[in-house]
């Protein structure tokens, strides 16, 4: 038995081959993630960071996108934003130049950050309202029957619908049928519906994690069902619901497909608060980060000047999403240690 036969050598080879396949598959993930983060970090970092104090390219974060003008003048290649070009013209009125223009590649991404923030706030508020309500109904009130099974299947299906289909649905229902046009409110409803299954599932889980003893203890003291839920279940489920929902925020902020027909403009000169009447606020399209990245990456002719805003936008976007995810993790850990039974 001690002698190494050819068969056991073969099986050992298989063992180590499998081991390496599995190991390489894992390292492949690491390599991809590293590449993505480095690529965006390095190229985007060039846009977002500067070598002089305050080391962050503030105009990139606080200015709207502008057209970039590139032209040769006195042997130098000048790259000027729309506004800079017009100022330059006033001092060089007599000079005839023939600039090539690159759309959106100068200025910053401020309206996109604002637009994405508005979309996230509205759609999450909507989704939390509907999602928590239905989760309370499902986990606290409903008794298992055919109707509830149907509801659960519907939720599962909703979770599996591709986001572009949500976009088309929102376009058909909110934009066309309800006549809301491309607007914040259409985007809110579309994104809200898309993230609803995640919120319902997270809320149900958090509600179920509240010990049954707390419900029984409360009911045994003469509390009604709703009093019990409001005073003795929901407060303890809320941290879990909110932290899980933060991951929903990352999804809502990140999706392009649902908003491209329903809420996003490629370019808009006014900021969202610059509206004539307050009701117009809800019925205006906005710029949004993911859609902006899509536009500058595929809708304009590519050249060496477009990379700046593509990678800069991606960098800021990635940073914001990571920040949200990190917040979620920190909050979850904290609420876990505070409420333990």
């Amino acid at each position, binding site marked *: 038995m001690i002698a190494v036969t050819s068969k056991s050598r073969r099986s050992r080879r298989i063992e180590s081959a499998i081991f390496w396949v599995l190991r390489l598959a894992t390292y492949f993930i690491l390599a991809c993630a590293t590449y993505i983060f480095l690529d965006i970090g390095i190229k985007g970092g060039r846009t977002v960071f500067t070598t002089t104090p305050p080391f962050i390219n503030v105009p990139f974060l606080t200015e709207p996108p502008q057209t970039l003008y590139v032209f040769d003048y006195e042997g130098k290649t000048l790259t000027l934003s729309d506004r800079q070009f017009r100022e330059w013209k006033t001092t060089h009125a007599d000079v005839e130049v023939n600039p090539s223009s690159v759309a959106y590649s100068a200025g910053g991404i401020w309206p996109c950050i604002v637009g994405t923030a508005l979309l996230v706030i509205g759609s999450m508020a909507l989704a939390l309202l509907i999602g928590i309500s239905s989760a309370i109904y499902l986990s606290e009130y409903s008794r298992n029957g055919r109707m509830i099974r149907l509801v659960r299947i519907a939720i599962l299906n909703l979770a599996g619908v591709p986001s572009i289909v949500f976009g088309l649905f929102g376009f058909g229902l909110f934009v066309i049928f309800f006549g809301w046009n491309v607007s914040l409110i259409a985007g809110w409803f579309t994104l809200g519906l898309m993230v609803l299954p995640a919120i319902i599932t997270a809320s149900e889980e958090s509600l179920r994690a509240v010990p049954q003893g707390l*419900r*029984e203890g*409360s*009911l*045994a003291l*003469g*509390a*009604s069902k709703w009093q019990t839920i409001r005073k003795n279940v929901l407060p*303890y489920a809320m941290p879990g619901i909110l932290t899980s929902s933060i991951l929903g925020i990352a999804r809502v902020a990140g999706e392009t497909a649902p908003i491209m027909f329903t809420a996003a403009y490629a370019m808009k000169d006014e900021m969202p608060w610059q509206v004539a009447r307050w009701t117009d606020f809800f019925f205006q399209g906005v710029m949004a980060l993911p859609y902006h990245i899509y536009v500058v990456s595929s809708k304009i002719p590519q050249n060496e000047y477009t990379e700046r805003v593509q990678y800069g936008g991606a960098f800021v976007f990635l940073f914001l999403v990571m920040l949200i995810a990190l917040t979620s993790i920190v909050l979850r850990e904290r609420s876990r240690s505070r409420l333990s039974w």
Partner: protein
Amino acid sequence: MVNIIEMPEITSPTIANQPAPSPEPGVERAMIEIEDVDFSYGTHQVLHDVSLSVPARAVTAFIGPSGCGKTTLLRCLNRMNDLIDGAQITKGSIRIEGTDINASSVDVVDLRRRVGMVFQKSNPFPKSIYDNVAYGLRIAGVTKRSLIDEAVEKSLRSAALWEEVKDRLHVSGYGLSGGQQQRLCIARALAVEPEIVLMDEPCSALDPIATAKVEELIRQLKEQYTIVIVTHNMQQAGRCSDRTAFFYLGRLIEVDDTAKIFSNPGQRQTEEYITGRFG
């Protein structure tokens, strides 16, 4: 099998809310009357034809091996089984001071306010000691601070916990020891001034010293309250109850004064269980 003398049913509406005459010898004034109750979880029947009277201002103990239905019966008394899908009384009635508690006109919230419950696993709310005790009152709509303060102190004193916690009323109830937590749950139940207190194995998770405290408490509480206690511990039933009901496989085998059950039980099964031959 069940040694209860059948008495004519008294349910005429004119005296429906009067304490009914006792259907059971040895019970002077019945607080709760359980009559021919069958109970099922879905298709699984767990109580068979149980009839029993619980005397007012006394301690009644339910004993029996695991799965004999004693906890189920206890949870019928404040309709806690309503929370379980498919669980229902299929036959018979339960009357508290003459009122059928399963009648459609009975408000279950009001019933539970009158019939308090202490659970097997102490379940303080993740709130301060004060807020735990005040919970039931606030739920009932009491907002006056002085009234709540008064009731909190009174309940904690009744539960023999006041001296131990009076200096830290506003720290979390989770910081208390197991026995203190259980007495906090008793205080919480007493705060809403119920008439009946149901206790589901209140000492099963407690050490002997904490158990002794809770048992002493139970003996004191019967001055004011009608107490029904489910217990696995026969010595406990012997120490703190006035009447004992022995259940086996979903049937009431015997009910009598505790002294008699433990010294001279009428049924062979009771004797075997009490002497530790099974269960």
